[in-house]
């Protein structure tokens, strides 16, 4: 495997087929990690326990587990219901040996917009995750109701001030809302728990409806869309900030789900190589140079 792409991983949602087929394609394309979703386990024909065993035996490290939606800001029975959903996800996440769970900002009209209460719920979510050894990455969804940009998501994370609550950064949402990368200067790189990368084919997505449709059906791998330059700037910026965590390709694409998984995984690998070699300019030492160094 090319070590220079060791911190890049694919997401199962980009591929068609069953869990075992997806993991095989990802591994054989040259990746060492995979972002998993609850559906990968629950919809596996052999059941959740078998799915967990397949992932553990695959040799791929789980990048993270996704995605808890619409958690913060609810009250009464809606809140209790979401706590149960969160706990169920955390139990699967822990069983996979996965250290990061992704939670995205609420889109619910039933949720309060009072930031104090949103912070309180995020604190509770983080505390639920402590005994299981899980970190929660909170991401601003570009169509989130109250929180829809990374800077406001960071504001809540900072206010919650929990060691295992951090920020999830997704390039798609940053580009969709045209959020400036400058505000990343305010973010503590050690509190970015996950970075998800994807591009898309349109120059602009103005309405929430457009964003949702594009996000769920028309994303492409980094370097395949029209925001390559911005994406390169984002990755370089994160690298310069001192981010040393994982990059996962969060690419929802209907066409890719209808193509052979091995072919899609090769496209993802080409993307990872572009980022590692051309954008981040990680030079892989040639074998002869390594020998010279060893002497």
């Amino acid at each position, binding site marked *: 495997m090319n070590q220079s792409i060791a911190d890049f991983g694919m997401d199962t949602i980009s591929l068609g087929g069953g869990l075992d087929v997806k993991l095989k394609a990802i591994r054989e394309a040259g990746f060492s990690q995979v972002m998993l979703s609850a559906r990968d386990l629950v919809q596996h024909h052999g059941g959740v326990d078998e799915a967990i065993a397949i992932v553990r035996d695959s040799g791929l490290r789980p990048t993270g587990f996704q995605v808890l939606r619409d958690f913060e800001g609810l009250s009464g029975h809606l809140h209790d219901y979401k706590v149960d959903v969160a706990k169920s996800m955390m139990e699967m996440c822990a069983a996979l040996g996965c250290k990061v769970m992704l939670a995205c900002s609420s889109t619910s009209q039933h949720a309060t917009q009072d930031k104090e209460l949103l912070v309180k719920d995020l*604190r*509770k979510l*983080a*505390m*639920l995750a*402590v*005994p299981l050894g899980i970190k929660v990455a909170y991401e601003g969804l570009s169509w989130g109701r109250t929180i829809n940009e990374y800077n406001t998501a960071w504001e809540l994370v900072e206010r919650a001030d929990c*060691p*295992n609550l951090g920020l999830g950064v997704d390039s798609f949402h940053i580009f969709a809302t045209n959020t400036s990368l400058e505000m990343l200067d305010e973010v503590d790189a050690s509190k970015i728990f996950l970075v998800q990368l994807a591009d898309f084919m349109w120059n602009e997505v103005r309405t929430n409806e457009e964003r949702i449709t594009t996000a769920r059906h028309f994303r492409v791998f980094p370097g395949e869309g029209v925001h390559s330059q911005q994406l390169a700037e984002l990755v370089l910026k994160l690298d310069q900030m001192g981010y040393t965590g994982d990059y996962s390709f969060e690419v929802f694409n209907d066409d890719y789900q209808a193509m052979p998984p091995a072919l899609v995984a090769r496209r993802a690998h080409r993307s990872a190589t572009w980022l590692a070699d051309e954008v981040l300019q990680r030079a892989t030492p040639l074998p002869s140079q390594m020998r010279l160094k060893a002497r």
Partner: protein
Amino acid sequence: MSSPERLQSVRENLGAASNPLGMNGIEFIEFSTAKPQALGQVLEQMGFRPVARHRSREVLLYRQGEMNVIINAHPRGRTALGGHKDVPQIAAIALRVRDAAEAYQRALDRGAWPIESVVQPMELHIPSIHGVGHSRIFFVDRYKEFSIYDVDFVPIPSVDQKPEPLCGFQFFGIVQYIGAERLADWTEFYSQLFGFESVPDEQRFGIMPKGRVLRSPCGSFFLQLIEPEPDAWDVDNEECLQRMALSAPDVLGAVKQLQERGIGFTETAVVHSEHRGALTNTYLGGVSFELVHRDA
């Protein structure tokens, strides 16, 4: 007109926020084991006496002075613990609090995981939450006027129910092993749910200074969180309640008395018995006790 309590709290700062649960020490520490007699023997060597049996389960209560230790050999408890089934494990800590129901609800509101307890008719329902690993944390508020043991346990006939402590022993704390880079997580857990606070790094007790020490809001109980050595991060990341620490006014005198009762102590260049503290040998594959000096 204000109640006397309300009047007092308005007149003076009682520091209620720093002890949100009204915590007041430890009611009991529980071990889980498939070999209750072997563990009981070690506890007896440490000065504990068996005083009562549970009404419906294979559970024994040991006591010395103010300390209660429970040995739970009930199969369900052991299955739930998982891990090393043959090695006795510290399975629970019970905190004495002002109001158990209130403390339990407060913990749940802040993100604790509740544990559904299985109680037989006429037994007490003692609320508990998940702690580290497979352990649990109980909340007990009936420890003054009558005790929880009056209900669930039957005294062993002709046994002194209040045996004097050996060497003046009292509960001092628990050592908890944590995973790599988990110090901040567990500090937050004990702080947010119970009001524990970190003691300064220069303040240490006993002879085992590693990790971080947290003091209970009542000031009478300590938790010591210890991460794996950096070179063992990949192989040794288990989290558990590792050992119990007892305090005594005269540690070296206590070491001598315990040695006479058959307890051995770790005596190496790095770890050895001294005035500040001592560490027993490990028994039954994983049970050891730490002694810590307490000013008389």
